[in-house]
C-alpha cells in the first residue's frame, strides 16, 4: 500500500482513477492542480504522485519541473488526455516515471506504480 498524491482538475478523472488506486489498496490524497499539490507537499510526503498535465493555475509539466528543480525525487506518473508523442518525451526527460493517456488501463497503471515505487527516480 502506498500513499499517492493524485493531482487532477477533473472530478470525473479523480473518481475514475481513484477507484483504480483504491482497488490496488492505495491511499489517495487529492489535489486539483500543480499549485495546490505543491502546497500539500509542504506538509505531506506521499510515496508517489500521479499528475494530470492540462490544469488551471499550474499545469502538470510545470509542477514536475518545479519538483525536480527542488531536488524532490518522489516518483511521478503522468496521466493525460494529451496524445502527442513528444509530450511523453518531455515528461520522461523531466524525470517522470511513466506517462499514460486517459483513460489509463487500471492493471497497467497499478503495475507502473509498483515499478516506480521499486525504482525511485
Amino acid at each position, binding site marked *: 500500500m502506498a500513499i499517492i498524491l493524485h493531482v487532477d482538475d*477533473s472530478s*470525473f478523472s479523480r473518481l475514475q482513477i481513484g477507484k483504480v488506486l483504491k482497488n490496488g489498496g492505495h491511499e489517495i490524497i487529492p489535489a486539483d492542480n500543480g499549485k495546490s499539490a505543491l502546497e500539500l507537499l509542504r506538509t505531506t510526503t506521499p510515496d508517489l504522485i500521479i499528475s494530470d498535465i492540462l490544469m488551471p493555475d499550474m499545469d502538470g509539466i510545470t509542477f514536475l519541473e518545479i519538483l525536480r528543480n527542488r531536488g524532490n525525487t518522489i516518483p511521478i506518473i503522468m496521466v493525460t*488526455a494529451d496524445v*502527442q*508523442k*513528444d509530450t511523453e518525451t518531455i515528461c520522461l526527460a523531466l524525470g517522470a516515471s511513466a506517462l499514460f493517456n486517459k483513460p489509463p488501463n487500471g492493471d497497467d497503471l497499478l503495475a507502473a506504480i509498483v515499478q516506480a515505487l521499486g525504482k525511485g527516480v
Partner: protein
Amino acid sequence: MAIITDDLMDALREIINIGVGKAAGTLNELLAHHITLEVPRIVIIHSNDLGEHISKRSEETLSLVTLPFSGQFSGLSTLLFSMDSASKLVDMLMGEEIPVGDLDAIKTGTLTEIGNILLNAVVGSIGNILNSRLSYSIPTYHVGSLRNILLPILQQESEALEVTTRFTVQSRHITGEILLLFKVGSFDSFIEALETAING
C-alpha cells in the same frame, strides 16, 4: 491563402478520420459500447461568412466543450451533444457511482473531461501525423446555442477551415459532433505541414 487540391483534401479527410478514430476508440474504452463514425465534412469559410455560417446552424440548446489549441497551426476544437445525449452519456459513464453533491457540477465536470479526452485525441493525433507540437488551453463547458457560444469566441478569427464529424453510440441513441475550426494565417501553416506529410 493556400489552395487545397483534391489530393490535399483527401489527405486532410484521412488525417481527420485517424484523429476521430482515436477519439472513438477512447470513448469505446470508456463506455464499452461500439461507436459509429461518419465521414468528416470539410468546409472552408471566409471571415465575412463565418458568422452567417454558424448562425445557419440549429438554434437548439446544446451541451458543448471547447478546447482551443495553438502552435504551428491554431484553432478551436469543439465537442457538441444535444442535452439529451449529454445526459445519457453522463449516466452511462457514472452509472450508479454518482457521488453526493451538486448534480449539475458533476455533469459539467464529467462532460468537460470527456471533451478534454476526446478533443485531445483528435487534435493531438493530427499534430502527431503532421509533426507539429501543439499547446492547449483549459477546456470549457458551455450550454446554449452554437451561435451564442461560438460567435463571441470566433470574433477575432479570420478565415477558417471547418471540419465536422458525427459519431453515434447506437445502442443508447447518443450522438455527438466534433467541430474543428482552424484559423487562417495558421491555416497556411497547416496546409504546409499537410503537404510535407504527404510528400515526405
